[in-house]
């Protein structure tokens, strides 16, 4: 391979990932996209989902990203997300509880006015993505 690309995932609280990767695959607004070294400059918003990359050793890493956006440059990918977790930091029990709560709120949202549908939906998506990533570890 021609070389490695620098990947950085930053949130307002911390820098989640800062290392070299062989390939980065991110959940773009219009679908997943992969970035290799020498990619053209590219900017997109991200969906809630998982960001995958292969580290220099060739093993796959998975990071949960909560929306935000990504900037790809020929030698570097920067992801700015409001929050992001590495797979090992995901608390799957908490995500399951969040899923249940979100489902319940969405069900109630039909009858109640005071529930913000969009927010509940976002919470649901986040929970689903987290669980999906968390379960990959178990498999």
């Amino acid at each position, binding site marked *: 391979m021609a070389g490695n690309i620098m990947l950085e995932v*930053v949130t307002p*609280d911390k*820098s989640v990932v800062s290392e070299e990767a062989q390939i980065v695959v991110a959940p773009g607004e219009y679908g997943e996209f992969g970035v290799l070294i020498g990619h053209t400059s*590219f*900017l997109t918003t991200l969906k809630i989902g998982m960001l995958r990359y292969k580290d220099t050793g060739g093993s796959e890493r998975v990071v949960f990203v909560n929306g935000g956006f990504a900037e790809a440059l*020929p030698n570097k990918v920067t992801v*700015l997300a*409001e*929050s992001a977790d590495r797979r090992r930091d995901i608390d799957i029990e908490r995500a399951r509880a969040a899923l249940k709560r979100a489902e319940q709120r969405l069900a109630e949202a039909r009858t109640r006015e005071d529930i913000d549908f969009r927010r509940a939906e976002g919470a649901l998506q986040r929970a689903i993505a987290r669980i999906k990533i968390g379960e990959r570890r178990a498999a």
Partner: protein
Amino acid sequence: MATLKDIKTKITAVQKTQKIVKAMNMVATSKLRGAQEKMEAFRPYANKFAEVLGSLSERVEADEEHAPPLLVPRAEVKNVDLLIMTSDRGLCGSFNTNLIIKAERFLKEKAGQDIEVRLICMGRKGRDYFRRRKYNIRSEHIGIVGARFGFSVAVNAGTELIDSFLNGETDEAHVIFSEFVSMARQMPTLKQLIPIAGVEKVEQAQEAEPVGYIPEHICEPSVEELMAVMLPKHVYVQIFGGLLETSTSEHAARMQAMENATSNCADMIVSLTMVYNKARQAAITAELMDIVGGAEALKG
């Protein structure tokens, strides 16, 4: 004149105060470190964000007609939101007073122009002050400044401001926060949040990455749509940054105030001890005089 015992009590009291004040100083110091670390952690995000938004906005402004509403100043400004950040707790010197003075000046200026100002108070001290004076407080957020808070706090407050701007309730939104200049200096700062008045450029020099950097990105979705997503985020980033700065400033101000208090206590103890010793000496002298006088009388 105060008796010996009175002075002694007073000295003990001051000593106890000094202990408390010293402890508060140490607490503030450690909290300050935490707050500063958070500020450091936020910097890469803020810088990158400003950089990307800057390069985007250059491409959008060519087309004034369809500029996103968050960028367009209103011709007539009648209603304004002011987000004022203060601390929840006192004992931090003139920290809150300075912020409130800044806010008062802003309010006076706007009142002179017949502009209605609604307040959003973050921090108990500011809220208490403005509530007592019956200002129009739109909402309040307590327990954020100086404590642990997440980005969602800034998102909520920002959404509140943006929504009322977009539906025409307000024509401008400003924020007053305390800028952390140095350990010894915290400056109350007024910033316009909405409409977004030009994205500040970060100094590019700090991290030179000229290798094939092409600012013209391919954008997905379109530049306009990206802007629509990023502009509200810009407001959140500003608010979050302000909150971090204010928190750090609060701890720095308290640390300073408590350090002064500690040394004032030390001064007081010194001067009180002096008074105490003098009084003791005077009592001894008086007693001696008595004895000597009595002995002389017997001899005679």
